[in-house]
């Protein structure tokens, strides 16, 4: 089952890659570099899905005390951090030729970076506790606070930039997205979600084996 999911994800990724380079048109203003979007946007959407699952797993654990929920939380958090990192790195590579800089303290960049740091902290905490039950409790509390904090971080960073200076960066995406671009994006999004689900299933399985081994 998991194996089939893995192959499905691989197939979808190949189709997505093919579409990104073969089917999607060359963007008029930015040229080929715009194709990074087909990695960048699916990665960030997948990361949001992952952190939503961390939140669900954290709540589920505190309510039911079943370690299965904790396995869901950790299995989502690790790929979530990975995909957030991928978003930041791909955005940085995209930003250099289009904005002329690797990094800028733009609202979205900043809040994504904060999100990354919060969940790296979450994983670090998990690494410091050995007993599964205690680890699950502490991690769940941090996971819930982290999720509750996301909207607050979002608004604080947005206003922080808005008050200091208006955004000088223009998002050069064509507003009504052309159909081939939207379709390529959709295919890649599905591919990334499948890949994430594969990671999730694998990581949860490892967590289960770890627990049965320790217990």
């Amino acid at each position, binding site marked *: 089952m998991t194996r089939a999911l893995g192959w499905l994800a691989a197939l979808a990724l190949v189709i997505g890659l093919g579409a990104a380079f073969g089917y999607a048109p060359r963007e008029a203003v930015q040229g080929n570099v715009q194709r990074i979007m087909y990695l960048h946007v699916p990665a960030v959407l997948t990361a949001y899905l992952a952190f939503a699952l961390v939140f669900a797993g954290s709540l589920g654990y505190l309510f039911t005390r079943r370690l299965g929920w904790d396995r869901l939380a950790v299995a989502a958090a690790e790929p979530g951090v990975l995909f957030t990192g991928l978003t930041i790195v791909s955005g940085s590579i995209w930003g250099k030729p289009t904005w002329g800089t690797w990094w800028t303290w733009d609202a979205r960049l900043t809040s994504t970076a904060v999100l990354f740091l919060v969940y*790296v902290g979450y994983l670090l905490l998990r690494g410091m506790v050995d007993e599964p039950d*205690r680890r699950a409790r502490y991690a769940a509390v941090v996971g819930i*606070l982290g999720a509750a904090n996301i909207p607050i971080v979002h608004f604080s960073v947005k*206003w922080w930039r808005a008050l200091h200076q208006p955004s000088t960066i223009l998002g050069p995406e064509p507003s009504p997205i052309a159909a081939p671009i939207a379709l390529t994006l959709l295919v890649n999004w599905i591919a990334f979600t499948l890949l994430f689900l594969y990671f999730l299933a694998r990581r949860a399985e490892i967590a289960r084996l770890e627990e049965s081994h320790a217990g």
Partner: protein
Amino acid sequence: MSAYLRRAWIVVWKDVLTERRSKESLNALLFFSVLLLFIFQFALGPERARVETALPGLLWLGFILAGVLGLGRSFLVEQENDCWEGLVLTPGDKSAIYLGKLAGNVLVMAVVEAALLVLFPVFFGLDLTGALPRLVVVLALGTLGLAAVGTLFGAITAQVRARELLFPVLLLPAQVPVLLGAVSATEIVLAGQPLAEAAQWLKLLAAADVVYLVVGLLTFEFVLEGA
């Protein structure tokens, strides 16, 4: 309700009494904040204008660094003589303990902040008296947010390995909104503008305080539970 508040008050009283007799945290914390002023001065150089532009940020950097040290310690006293067991065995709603610890931490932070607010003007030749009443509002909202998360995370990290490192690593990213809001509001207040100018930031701080407090009150019992 009154029994609940009384339990919270007992925790505050116990911590104040312990601190008065041991003088473990506050003295060192106050000394640390004076030290910070010297470090800031050395880092920025003797130019007055530089210090004045950076003042809101420096103030909050001082509070947050003192908070990282002070709040991180707040549950360590409970590790001695099996006090933790005593807290776990306390009957009734455990969130009262959180509330008491939080109040104690706000108290400690308030003392440190008062000291920094007296010493900053002295060392840097500034006059803050005009802005002080408005500044207190900003400080109260910012400190509550900092202490609410700091108390919760302090209770967690008191029980894990590498706690001195883990505590700031967890606390600082979670405090980005409080830092942004508090620094921006302080900047507005110190520029001599009325509080209404900073209303947006004050609302954000208040909202953050409420969210952190609710999460802290609801989840604390899971943190306290036997180690």
